[in-house]
């Protein structure tokens, strides 16, 4: 027995050694062997206006299709007509992702169930990576139906000038299939190397056989139909339950600041406020891919620089008798039918602008500004490029006829202000209407406000990437750093665009001084009214390259500092939903306070609005660094900066007629955290699948039959031995 035991243990040991020789393995869930998940969350999502549903969505579990990468134009025919494995998920390069191609694909939803666009930064300065004629998701006549010329027979529909030639109009189309952007290198690697080239690429024109690589694109959107229906569904009786609100109106905050602090118990004369405005937003097709350089950044940075210069002489202006008030206004949501400017005009008409407070109380607040108080409106649109080396001033022909003298003064004044500066302002064709601009909403309600819009195009846009993720900083020379600079050096380097903006901001500040006081600035004042190039380049860096910059760190409260430091990309310029304020409008508010306000000696707990003088807003921010450590001074800034809702009046008016088109009705569908997903996998040939199923059925049937037969006859088959008999072992 001992020998037997010894032999057994030896045998067991051998087996143990034998087995341990095999390669080690970690436990792996089968799912990780089947699916490759992509990181991308840059999806085109569903939006609504009062009458339509637009954007992209997939079925609830995702759209599945065979991956096909378009490399030449014949591939379109393959996908749409000849390919035998429809439906396909199309992968294309940025240069092919233009309106016409996208339309060709999504309109054949039986053959194309999804699109992915490879959106990597180009490795070299290869201009062939971009669509040749530009790309813009707005249509060729942006915001036409929301602007001054919607009913105009002469100027409506861009009859005179098509502003946005590369406009694809995708912003207003219901693509109906999921569309993703791939901006991560590893994602592109996976889909091309591991998926398409390995399994799906045609060899010599004929298709490959199974197994084929497929993708599942999931964009689960909760809302449907249009804004009216979606809001109604959200507001039903059970709206207190989580998950019942399925769409949100778009909106944000407008920022504005006035030079004078006129309280409500004084008078504000008619035609006594100069408004100078710019927009803060742009848009693009994909979430997380909201870039802008010319579309909005060039404009609002110029305005901020001009503001900073102008406020240096605020006491001079305030003390000048009869000086006009100057209001700097920044509008949000202008890409979506002028949400911000229509909201401001509406609140002016309601008497709640700039502060919505009762006027019978005896604490001070700012005197309201109504349309009749506006003396003139100067707007900066896209000002990053130059058209024939110059910037252009546009006016509305009817407006010009009504206010000939004033507009001539404005134009001459602006031209004069550029004297001695390296910036050129010229007049655009007088028969040409205004380009899409926020000031159009003001003219719609009061047609005799003299309006001049300054842009970088004489007729059509020079910007080929208006409202697009391709509106890159490189194109306006805002990031032309010499090679080999560190981030800190890049932050301080004065780029070409920074110089251009400084010149324009200086001209604007000088013009405003004269327009307000009525007197030309003397040489000392002129020198003071020079934009700070360093501040301008800092702003460009912070908004276009990285928010992790000293300028922004100084003007945020300490609890936002970490958000700045961990930001990997510039903050997005998309308006977003009302109630969820974007970083851009919040940062611009703080920058305005910094440039126009004064530091007061209050600590954080006392740095809040005075009970009796509500004109001034108080802001406590980190401030500049002290010493070499992480400590910061802490500033309490007192200023006249205000914000107001950029929230379309359509959502504020009871029983608004959603089909009227009077105000912006844009809203965004809601989605869940895991609603956006792309994964890759193989699909087996239908034959193999059928074979597996059939073999299973055969096994099941056979086993049922055999078991039945044996069970029935089990008595005879299994003859019982008597328990007392010892049988020799058999078998």
């Amino acid at each position: 027995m001992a020998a037997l035991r010894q032999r057994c243990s030896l045998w067991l040991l051998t087996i143990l050694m034998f087995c341990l020789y095999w390669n080690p393995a970690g436990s792996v869930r089968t799912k990780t062997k089947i699916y490759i998940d992509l990181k991308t969350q840059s999806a085109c999502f569903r939006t609504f206006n009062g009458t339509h549903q637009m954007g992209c969505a997939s079925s609830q579990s995702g759209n599945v299709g065979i991956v096909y990468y378009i490399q030449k134009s014949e591939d379109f025919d393959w996908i749409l007509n000849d390919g035998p494995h429809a439906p396909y998920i199309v992968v294309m390069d940025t240069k092919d992702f233009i309106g016409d191609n996208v339309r060709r694909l999504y309109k054949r939803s039986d053959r194309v169930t999804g699109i992915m666009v490879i959106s990597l930064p180009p490795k070299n300065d290869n201009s062939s990576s971009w669509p040749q004629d530009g790309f813009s998701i707005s249509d060729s006549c942006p915001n036409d139906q929301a602007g001054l010329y919607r009913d105009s027979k002469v100027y409506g529909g861009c009859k005179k000038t098509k502003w946005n030639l590369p406009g694809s109009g995708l912003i207003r189309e219901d693509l109906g299939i999921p569309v993703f952007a791939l901006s991560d290198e590893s994602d592109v690697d996976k889909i091309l190397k591991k998926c398409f080239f390995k399994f799906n690429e045609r060899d010599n024109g004929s298709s490959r056989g199974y197994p084929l690589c497929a993708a599942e694109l999931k964009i689960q959107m909760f809302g449907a139909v249009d804004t009216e229906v979606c809001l109604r569904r959200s507001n039903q009786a059970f709206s207190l339950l989580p998950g019942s609100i399925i769409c949100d109106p778009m909106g944000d905050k407008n920022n504005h600041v006035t030079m004078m602090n006129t309280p409500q118990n004084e008078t504000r004369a008619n035609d006594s406020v100069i408004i100078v405005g710019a927009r803060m937003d742009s848009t693009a097709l994909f979430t997380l891919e909201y870039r802008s350089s010319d579309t909005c950044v060039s404009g609002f940075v110029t305005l901020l620089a001009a503001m900073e210069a102008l406020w240096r002489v605020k006491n001079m202006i305030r003390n000048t008798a009869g000086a006009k008030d100057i209001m700097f206004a920044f509008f949000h949501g202008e890409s979506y039918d002028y949400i911000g400017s229509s909201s401001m005009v509406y609140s002016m008409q309601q008497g709640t602008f700039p502060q919505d407070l009762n006027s019978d109380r005896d604490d001070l607040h700012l005197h309201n500004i109504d349309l009749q108080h506006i003396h003139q409106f100067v707007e900066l649109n896209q000002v990053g490029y130059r058209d024939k080396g110059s910037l252009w001033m546009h006016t509305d022909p009817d407006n010009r006829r009504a206010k000939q003298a004033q507009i001539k003064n404005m134009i001459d004044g602006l031209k004069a202000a550029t004297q001695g500066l390296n910036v050129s302002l010229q007049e655009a064709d007088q028969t040409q209407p205004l380009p899409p601009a926020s000031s159009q909403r003001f003219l719609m309600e009061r047609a005799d406000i003299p309006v001049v819009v300054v842009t970088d195009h004489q007729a059509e846009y020079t910007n080929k990437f208006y409202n697009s993720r391709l509106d890159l900083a490189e194109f306006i020379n805002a990031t032309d750093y010499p090679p080999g600079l560190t981030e800190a050096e890049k932050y301080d380097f004065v780029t070409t665009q920074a110089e251009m903006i400084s010149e324009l901001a200086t001209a604007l500040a000088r013009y405003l001084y004269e327009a307000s006081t009525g007197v030309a600035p003397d040489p000392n004042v002129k020198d003071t009214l020079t934009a700070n190039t360093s501040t301008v380049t800092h702003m460009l860096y912070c908004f276009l390259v990285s928010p992790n910059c000293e300028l922004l760190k100084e003007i945020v409260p300490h609890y936002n500092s970490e958000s700045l430091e961990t930001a990997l990309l510039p903050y997005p310029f998309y308006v977003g939903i009302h109630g969820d304020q974007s970083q851009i409008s919040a940062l611009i508010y703080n920058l305005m306070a910094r440039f126009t306000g004064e530091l007061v000696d209050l600590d954080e707990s006392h740095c809040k609005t005075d009970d009796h003088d509500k004109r001034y807003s108080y802001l406590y921010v980190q401030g500049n660094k002290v010493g070499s450590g992480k400590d910061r001074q802490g500033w309490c800034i007192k200023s006249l900066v205000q914000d107001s809702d950029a929230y379309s009046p359509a959502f504020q008016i009871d029983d608004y007629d959603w089909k009227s088109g009077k105000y912006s009705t844009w809203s965004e569908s809601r989605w869940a955290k895991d609603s956006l997903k792309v994964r890759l996998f193989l699909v087996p040939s239908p034959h193999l699948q059928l074979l597996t199923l059939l073999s299973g059925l055969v096994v099941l049937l056979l086993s049922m039959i055999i078991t039945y037969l044996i069970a029935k006859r089990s008595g005879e088959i299994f003859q019982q031995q008597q328990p007392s008999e010892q049988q020799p072992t058999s078998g």
Partner: protein
Amino acid sequence: MTLMEFFGCTFITFGPPFALFVFTIARDPMRVIVLMASAFFWLCALLMSSIVWFAVVPLRDHLAFGVVFSVLLQELFRFLFYKILRKAHDGLLAVSQQTTEQHVTPKDFSNRHIMAYVSGLGFGVIAGTFSIVNVLADMTGPGTIGIEGDSKFFFWTSACLSLCIVLLHTAWGVIFFSALDKNQWTRVIMVIAAHMFFSCISLVNQQSSSDNSGVYMGSLIPSYLLLIGSGAAAFLTAGGSFVNLKNALICRKGRYEIE
């Protein structure tokens, strides 16, 4: 649409056990109870194996180590179940005689192989379930295996091996219990050795890839050969023989004998 693959593999793995359950176990409550109890004992063995695996931190990545211990623990629990079943034999007999259920025949207890078979099937069903249910769950999505370079026969092979283990456990149950009844220790050792052999040979599957599907044959063929061998041994142990089989299925002689 790999839903077809899902159903195919489910039927392959669970078809025969389902047939066995329906035709030999379902009508008899006593057998159902013993089936469930033996399944539970297998689960206990799995629990102990996981504790051992978890406790030995440095060897966690080495599958082989876990496999060896798991096999030994499963056989240990089979032995424990045998002990319990035999001890409870008299009690169960008493219970079954008090209730006048028509279909509970004393045959269940006079023929010790029946409970051995039922307990083996219980072990087998739960072992098979645990080995395939995760794979089945992942099969229901739109994709099949292969994009990371694995063989496309993975699902089919998993199902076949799981079926193999269900039937093997059933056979081993019969052999094991009868060997212990008769104190034939060599047979017990052989069951344990067969189990070890089967588990270790399945480790060969790790070498598979999309170009190398043939590796699966290296585990499938020995496993099925082992199944045929164990099945034959169990068949003979339970009192069957080729002659009886021929008589029962082909000849009509002896069909009307009263048992």
